[in-house]
């Protein structure tokens, strides 16, 4: 069974790149446009892992992670944060919100796969 990943980013370009790379790597991909959309799609997508951007309208990545962690059935869902910088502060905030791991942009397929296999299993 392929690993199912929900990828959340408000940028259409990044969404397409994520989809491209993840499909290449053999994952099943669902896309969402922001945190709120991601929350709504969680039930239908039933992902093994989520990759999310931080800075998004309506609900940002931190808000999304917090909301997910509040739901008992998703309290252990691996959530990978996409960040542009390796800024320690950003990571600390993501961690505080309950992020599992992070990927520093720009990402490529290898980076995505490497991070995913360290946090999720189908």
């Amino acid at each position, binding site marked *: *069974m392929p690993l*199912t990943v929900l990828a959340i980013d*408000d*940028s*259409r*370009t*990044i*969404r*397409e*790149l994520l*989809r*491209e790379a993840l499909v290449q790597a053999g994952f*099943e*991909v*669902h*896309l*969402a*446009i*922001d945190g709120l*959309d991601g929350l709504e799609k969680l039930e*239908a997508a*039933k*992902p*093994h*892992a989520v990759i999310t*951007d931080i*800075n*998004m*309208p309506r609900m940002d990545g931190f808000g999304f992670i917090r909301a997910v*962690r509040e739901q*008992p*059935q998703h*309290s*252990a*869902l*691996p*959530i990978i944060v996409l960040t*542009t*910088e*390796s800024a320690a502060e950003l990571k600390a905030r993501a*961690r505080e919100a*309950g*992020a*599992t*791991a*992070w990927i*520093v*942009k*720009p*990402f490529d397929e*290898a*980076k995505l*796969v*490497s*991070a995913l*296999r*360290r*946090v*999720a*299993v189908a």
Partner: protein
Amino acid sequence: MEQSDIRSAFFVECEDLMEALNEGLDRIEETLDEGHDDETVNAVFRAVHSIKGGAGAFKLDALVRFAHQFETTLDSLRAGRVSVDPPLLALLHKAADRLSDLLQAARTGSEAADIDPDDLAAQLAQAAGEEEVGEADAEDLGFVPMRLDLDLPVAAPDEVQSGRYSIDFSPTRALYACGNDTSILFRVLGDLGRMEVRLDRSRLPDFDSLDWQESWLDWHLTLETDEPEHQIDEVFEFVEDLCRLEIRPMPLEAPGPDPEPEPDPEPDPPASGPAAPRKAPVEDGRNASPRATVRVELDRVDRLINIVGELVINQAMLSQCVQDEGVPPRSPVRNRLDDFRNLAREIQESVMAIRAQAIKPLFQRMSRIAREASEIAQKQIRLVTEGESTEVDKTVIERLADPLTHMIRNAVDHGIEPADRRLHLGKPPVGLITLTAAHRSGRVLIEIKDDGGGINRPRVLEIARGKGLVAPEAQLTEEEIDGLLFMPGFSTASVVSDLSGRGVGMDVVKSAIESLGGRITIASDPGVGTTFTISLPLTLAVLDGMVVDVGGQTMVVPVSAIVETLRPRPTDIHVLGSGDQVVAIRGSLVPIVDCGSIFGFRAPVRSYGESVLLLVETARQKLCALVVDTIHDQRQVVIKGLENGYGRIPGVAAATILGDGRIALIIAPEEAVDIGTSGGTFSMEF
């Protein structure tokens, strides 16, 4: 989607992002006094951030570097480390313009991308509160995309040797709370070599006192691997702050600490992925766009508009047939046909609306033009835009860009007075230019208004006389003097300036507007300001036409060009020595152009007394009277291009199909007048 498709989609997305960015900056500017709200700054930040993110993916380094610096400054703003003031805002606007240039350069692959003439990046850095950096250091501070090629061992040869490590690993409860799974970590670690796992449950309390959310289990691992040590560190990269971790190299041949059989990993907190059946095909990200829009090629829309145009014509022909067959007016057939006509009209309007776009991007471009122009002219200008959501045909918007640019530059250059003069006159030092768009009675009105000195009419008249555009003794009304600005070859600026003196005059603006079926008028109040008003049709696909008969042919004249229609008395017609005729209208002599003869339908008539005259206004001749035989009616006609099939025909703009199926040519009044007067030097008397 191919990589190149994503790349071009990225640039399309960037257009939206730039729009959001500029809009946000404008909003911050508007609310400068009352203090901006955080969400606006956030939106601006996000736009730059997204551009940077996408640019990074396509390795557009110049773009990434600049966007990064821009973002850093915005971040300082967001965090409240710096506050907004007009100079900072001006810098941010400039940075947005530069970002737009860099995007354009990246899109076209041009080389100019790396030049930063104003050293904007350094200015941004300074504004962000960073220490000013010298030229040499600037590069170091620039953003360099960080690459972590995790799966490629880059070990030096001496590192590639078997190693044996003892790993003590005590997870905290936060490790589990953040969705980590020790069994996954161990599996990845096990992939590095041969591993032994020993569970230490000595801390596990009695069942009664067990807090099930706490982490009670410790692990002792022994790993024998050929991989360098940093590969082990990497496995723990995401959890190193969530556990107690100790990795020690061990002597290679030493016996394992404890040959206890490998236990199963502990029973984990809730499973990471329920094994429910998965359906839902891969979702299309574009459909999830927040604006719920589709991008359609313009060609397709135009094809649709064309076909719907045919449909409307076909419906008109059908109505005509039914009428000719003598079907009585209230019969069921006629009623159904009426429904059909209404539906066809509705479809046509809906389809036309597809081509309509908000004028906002064009207005945003004008903001930039005004900023740049005010810098060159060294004047302080504020451009206020209103009615940005007014929808206008896409082609109209595109073709408005040049005339508007020219007019904004004119307003800055000639309209607004220098600050010291304004102060002297008791005006605020910052000149105000207002750009407004609105829908009014089926047309689009665009107004460019400045609060400058107004048109200097004595000076205009003097120049026009000097250039021989007006007879020396002619007495002109204020309106007529203002109208001189639109004469070809007229330019009031005694010194050609950097800004507006580019060889383009207001006559070019006027003909550009007229080629869109529009009209432009001036209103000016000395000392108070000047207002240019452009009135445009909503669409270029249909036109309000006056259907006329000329020499036995049916033709259409655009109503927008017609000032008035009249039937002169024979005594009003005067024949000049050349044989040309003029008509006296309210004391002015207006040249007469016979549509019948210029299109070769008949020879010129001896006297046009009792003919029908359509008074049209053109840039070159001011007023001119077109002769037609009869006026049928006024109606909307669908414009059908002729140029693909027949090439350019002087005096003819396009064609249309009438209700009875006949083809009628649409006259281009400006050209018709040119032909009729042979572009001659007809001297006007007023």
